[in-house]
């Protein structure tokens, strides 16, 4: 009556595979050290761990570009389907490096913050903050490297348990309320995801993504499973209309935490959706679902941007802008699956989407850090009270402006390249309506960015009251992130070969010449 599925995992551990284990393990070791060594060394341990983590990320990148194929590790030497595999392809390595850079920058930004005093008894906020920052970096690495759907479930739970306490680090009632709402959405997402995992196991007897890719059949079971998992992950990614937890949570967290939450954490669950749709679901089965996801994405762009324009507080404005920018990511789904007639446009859309993800991460981190500095300087973040603020802390506002440029899609920013590639793909594939949404979203983004920037840079009517000095180091961190968002706009406007390593056709390297503008 029953037969085992005798699918051997197609590959062995590759030489650099141990790096994948280290990328997950090192942050966890850092956490254990923080909790045994005591407060005196918390910050030192955390920053050292982040530095080592960044080195590991670069090592994985080198390994991947060196060999030109996926890096694989079979944990415990057990071969899936029985065991667990870790696998880094071009997509995962881009996200790992991105995460290392952003979290590293946030670490430098947050150094010395949270009432930190190495000689005083241990305090709550610094201990918790550094622990959770390391936790998020380890958990995200696990999401990007995990090749097993249940392993990914553990990873998203790790993300939840680190992200939620960050939201209410200040211990105020309204942030705890936001954190609880976030937690309930995240838990709803987790159970839906787990239900899908169970169904997939019932159909195929394996949870390994690489194996599933080879055995997945177009059948109701797979559709229902993927639909449940996608809805669950959408709740965590905060795609419209499941975004309602996001603005209060992201705006309530301390600036350093908001930067990580908005730039990276929502991308973690998005990454798993990408895995499900592009790595498991057979290409011919994505049609209607992909259009629906993009439709929600379009609504998110329009709705999020309009609400952002109406916000009175800077951090809420930035948070609603995240709601809108997440929408762009979902335009990838119909564009990057493409059609057989236009494979080239599919890979253009794929590159554009990932570029959007990365540029938004840099830009949004820069903007949230800038908002934190605004708060430090003036003691509030009411937009109406920021007239002339740009003359007091120019670097902060330059960082904010450069980040905003990327959100609007002005050349030569990363956001411009991303949106340009997606525009190209949507026109090329004849799905022009997405192009209209992209353009419209850019105009609306200009609306909310300039609404802050123009009065801030103008000569104020009255002298603005300054509450405290702003650390130059922190300003420079925000600026550096904003410049990163700008710099990745200079990558050539064509499908990036790195993204295709170890992947299938959608990120294919078949680039017909002359597509670049």
């Amino acid at each position, binding site marked *: 009556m*029953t037969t*085992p599925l005798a699918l051997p995992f197609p590959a062995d551990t590759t030489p650099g595979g141990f790096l994948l284990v280290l990328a997950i393990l090192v942050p966890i070791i850092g956490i254990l050290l923080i909790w045994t060594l005591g407060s005196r060394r918390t910050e030192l341990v955390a920053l050292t761990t982040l530095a080592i983590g960044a080195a590991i990320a670069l090592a994985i990148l080198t390994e991947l570009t060196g060999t030109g194929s996926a890096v694989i590790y079979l944990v415990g030497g057990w071969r899936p389907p*029985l065991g667990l595999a870790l696998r880094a392809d071009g997509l995962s390595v881009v996200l790992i490096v991105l995460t290392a850079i952003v979290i590293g920058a946030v670490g430098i930004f*947050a150094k010395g*913050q*949270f*009432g930190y005093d190495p000689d005083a008894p241990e*305090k*709550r*906020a610094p201990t918790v903050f550094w622990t959770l920052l390391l936790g998020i970096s380890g958990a995200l690495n696990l999401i990007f490297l995990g090749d097993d759907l*249940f392993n990914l*479930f*553990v990873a998203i*739970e790790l993300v*939840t*348990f680190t992200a*939620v*306490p960050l939201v*209410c*680090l*200040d*211990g*105020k*009632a*309204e*942030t*705890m*309320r936001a*954190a*609880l709402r976030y*937690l*309930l959405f995240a*838990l*709803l997402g*987790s*159970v839906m995801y*787990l*239900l899908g*995992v*169970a*169904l997939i*196991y*019932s159909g195929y*007897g394996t949870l390994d993504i690489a194996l599933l890719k080879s055995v997945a059949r177009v*059948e109701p079971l797979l559709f229902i499973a993927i639909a449940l998992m996608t809805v669950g992950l959408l709740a965590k990614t905060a795609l419209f209309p499941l975004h309602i937890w996001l603005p209060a949570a992201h*705006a*309530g*967290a*301390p*600036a*350093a935490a908001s930067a990580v939450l908005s730039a990276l954490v929502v991308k973690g669950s998005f990454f798993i959706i990408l895995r499900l749709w592009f790595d498991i679901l057979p290409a011919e089965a994505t049609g209607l679902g992909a259009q629906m996801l993009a439709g929600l994405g379009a609504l998110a762009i329009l709705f999020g941007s309009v609400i952002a324009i109406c916000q009175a*507080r800077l*951090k809420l404005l930035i948070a609603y802008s995240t709601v809108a920018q997440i929408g762009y990511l979902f335009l990838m789904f119909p564009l990057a699956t493409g059609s057989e007639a236009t494979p080239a446009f599919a890979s253009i859309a794929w590159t554009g989407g990932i570029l959007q993800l990365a540029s938004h991460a840099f830009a949004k981190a820069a903007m949230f850090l800038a908002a*934190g500095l605004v*708060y*430090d300087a003036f*003691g*509030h*973040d*009411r937009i109406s009270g920021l007239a002339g603020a740009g003359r007091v802390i120019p670097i902060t506002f330059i960082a904010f402006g450069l980040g905003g440029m990327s959100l609007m899609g002005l050349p030569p920013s990363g956001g411009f390249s991303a949106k340009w590639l997606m525009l190209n793909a949507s026109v090329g594939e004849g799905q022009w309506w997405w192009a209209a949404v992209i353009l419209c979203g850019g105009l609306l983004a200009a609306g909310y960015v300039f609404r802050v920037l123009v009065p801030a840079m103008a000569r104020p009517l009255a002298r603005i009251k300054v509450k405290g000095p702003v650390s130059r180091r922190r300003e420079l961190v925000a600026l550096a992130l904003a410049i990163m968002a700008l710099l990745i706009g200079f990558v050539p406007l064509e499908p990036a070969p790195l993204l295709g390593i170890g992947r299938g056709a959608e990120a294919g390297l078949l680039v017909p010449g002359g597509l670049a503008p």
Partner: protein
Amino acid sequence: MTGATFDTATLYGLCGAALVGIGLFGLVLDPKPIRKILAFNLVGAGVFLVFGVIARRGAAAGFGGDPVPQALVITGIVVAFSATALAVTLVQRLSSAATDAGQPGQAASVPPKGETGTPGQGDAAS
């Protein structure tokens, strides 16, 4: 796909499916957070049960069920408990914070003007 089979496992599978539906309904609709947490645990129980039925159907090699999904359920139960602990503590702190401020219930949801959770502020006072 084959025709319908109906055995003990199927019965409990249907029970799991019903629990998921009932739990989801409560999780989304009940306004009270503690009830939402309870409903979340119901959905979890349903999902685990479906997983367990899948394990039962995979009985082979002399085992009463496929040990892999059973082990996954054990992991899942512990994770769900941790989630419940975090959620319950949030509810507990939230209501004590609301009581401290002398404004039970909803009042705390409107942030006082200018108060953002920016680093350093909450802790500088301690």
